[in-house]
């Protein structure tokens, strides 16, 4: 049935907490208020203060709590209110959490999920709107997930909570209100598998998070012009599902990558590089990336800044023209 993205997150948390007593949530305002974006609404009433833990404004400590609890066998789900604030947890994420297992020779499992909303759309300015996956994609030991739909955000969050590795779970604020079909019963969406959201033969658009929807919109328009776009929702950044990317590119032999994050040095570069290196001669046209310009997220000029369907249309046409 029709459920909002934010509600799907809330359901996933509630279901996993009901299923496994070792799962708990921790973060700023997650308790009484049910979270800044109400991802944790009603969890306090249902599961109590022991398992729904408000913290001070201490992002480094929030992640440390999760790491230590996981070392002792619990399954914490930490919320960082805005993905931008992950910068305050950076050491605890990249130097601690991500390395614990390797550093200690496999001594510990690290079933930690860190949820954080990224992206623009609220005119919240440069410190509340960033897409930060590029900070973490190259950090061995982490998994990075970016769900685009209510269905996927629920299934992927449940998978992330059951995963014995640290998962950085990047939601997109602009999608919180999005409605989509979410099945009644229990289901999981596997981490590390991209999904073809629209089959097409002319060009592959590998998209993440909000840009999946922008790409679908673009594809509709382009269909009218006789361009048949295949849209691959990456869903997981690391581990990267090269197999699905390659399968699609083998079919279309044209590649566009679309993400909301700054284009330069973004994760799109890895996808383009992987295709160019590993599918020699397969591309009939040079690849093209769609992403934000190399400027901080502006306050008033956000709409002009954000990558959109029009940008995807331009990119697709450029690779079709070549």
């Amino acid at each position: 049935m029709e459920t909002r993205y934010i509600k799907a997150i809330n359901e996933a948390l509630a279901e996993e907490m009901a299923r496994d007593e070792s799962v708990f949530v921790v973060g700023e305002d997650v308790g009484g208020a049910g979270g800044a974006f109400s991802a944790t609404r009603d969890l306090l009433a249902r599961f109590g203060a022991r398992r729904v833990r408000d913290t001070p404004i201490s992002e480094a400590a929030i992640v440390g709590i999760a790491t230590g609890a996981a070392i002792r066998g619990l399954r914490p789900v930490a919320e960082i209110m805005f993905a931008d604030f992950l910068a305050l947890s950076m050491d605890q994420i990249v130097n601690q959490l991500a390395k614990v297992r390797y550093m200690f020779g496999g001594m510990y499992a690290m079933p930690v999920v860190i949820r954080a909303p990224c992206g623009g759309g609220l005119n919240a300015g440069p410190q509340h709107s960033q897409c930060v996956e590029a900070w973490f994609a190259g950090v061995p030991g982490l998994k990075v997930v970016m769900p685009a739909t209510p269905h996927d955000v629920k299934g992927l969050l449940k998978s992330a909570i059951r995963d014995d590795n640290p998962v950085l779970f990047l939601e997109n604020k602009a999608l919180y209100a999005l409605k989509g079909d979410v099945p009644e019963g229990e289901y999981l969406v596997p981490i590390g598998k991209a999904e073809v959201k629209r089959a097409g033969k002319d060009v592959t658009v590998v998209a993440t998070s909000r840009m999946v929807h922008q790409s679908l919109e673009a594809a509709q328009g382009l269909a009218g012009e006789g361009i048949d776009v295949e849209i691959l929702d990456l869903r997981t950044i690391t581990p990267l599902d090269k197999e699905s990317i390659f399968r699609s590119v083998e079919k279309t032999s044209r590649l566009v990558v679309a993400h909301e994050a700054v284009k330069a040095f973004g994760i799109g570069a890895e996808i383009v590089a992987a295709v160019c290196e590993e599918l020699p001669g397969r591309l009939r046209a040079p690849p093209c990336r769609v992403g934000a310009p190399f400027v901080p997220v502006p306050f008033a000029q956000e709409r002009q800044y954000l990558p959109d369907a029009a940008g995807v249309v331009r990119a697709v046409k450029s690779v079709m023209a070549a």
Partner: protein
Amino acid sequence: MTDAREQQLAILHSMVRIRRVEERLSELFSQGKVPGFIHVSIGQEAIAAGVCSCLGPEDSVLTTHRGHGHALAKGIGLKRFMAEIYGRRDGFCKGKSGSMHIADKGVGVVGANGIVGGGLPISLGTALASQYRGEKTVTVCFFGDGASNQGTFHESLNIAALWSLPLVFCCENNGWAQFTPQARYMKVESVAERAEGYGIPGVTVDGNDVVRVREAALEAVARARRGDGPTLLECKVRRWLGHYVGDAQKYRPPEDVKGAKALDPIRAYADQLSAAGAIGPDGLADIELRVKAEIDEAVRFAGESPPAGPEELFTDVYA
């Protein structure tokens, strides 16, 4: 009119101005005229007015997401302030900062900050610059009780104490951090209790009493100017309204709101001044009139200011 009385009227005017500007901003925001989100300091005006009354334009102030009051009390121009919050070209930051990053170098408003606790380490640097150059200028860094639990608070107070920086750490303790009451983020009742761990004075005053705030700030600022180092000045108030404009505060007991609003620093000070004969029966009304006229003009100015041109998106990334 005596200097003392001028000073008193200026402080009353400053408080009223902050209150009315933020009330107007709230209206405009609700009408969809202001992009982003805004946090108002209504009910906390005595702190901004009292502390900034001790500073000159060459002194620096760093503030937070709830920073309109500090910027206004420090002397920021209302027209360009309003234009900035509107996100227009004539704003102090060309519409790039908005409410949460308001700044005006010209009057020593170094800048607001969207990262809770983010301004504290930066205030070390602005204060160090004064010391480095042998200036007598000081920095005041405003932050909230919630911010006092960030690691940056600790690192900053330790270093400021160690280096005897000309810095005043002014904590506006309003009992709330966003949707969470203080008891759920710190065990101690007063942030000032933490000063001792750095070897600096910690002072707690009633943030609703502008006279007490000003006295304490005068001492802390004088101490900083003398080169005797930083002070942690905590001003206790209670948050009147929601965390941001539009926050329904479902998480908050109504009595708590009522209790907060029972304490009005502006009414209290106005009564005090009229009792002392410092203002006459229409003293407050005169101020209100002047303030209203200034706000009307600023809102007009902001509304008429054009949005930044498309090229502005790409400027100011690098020098």
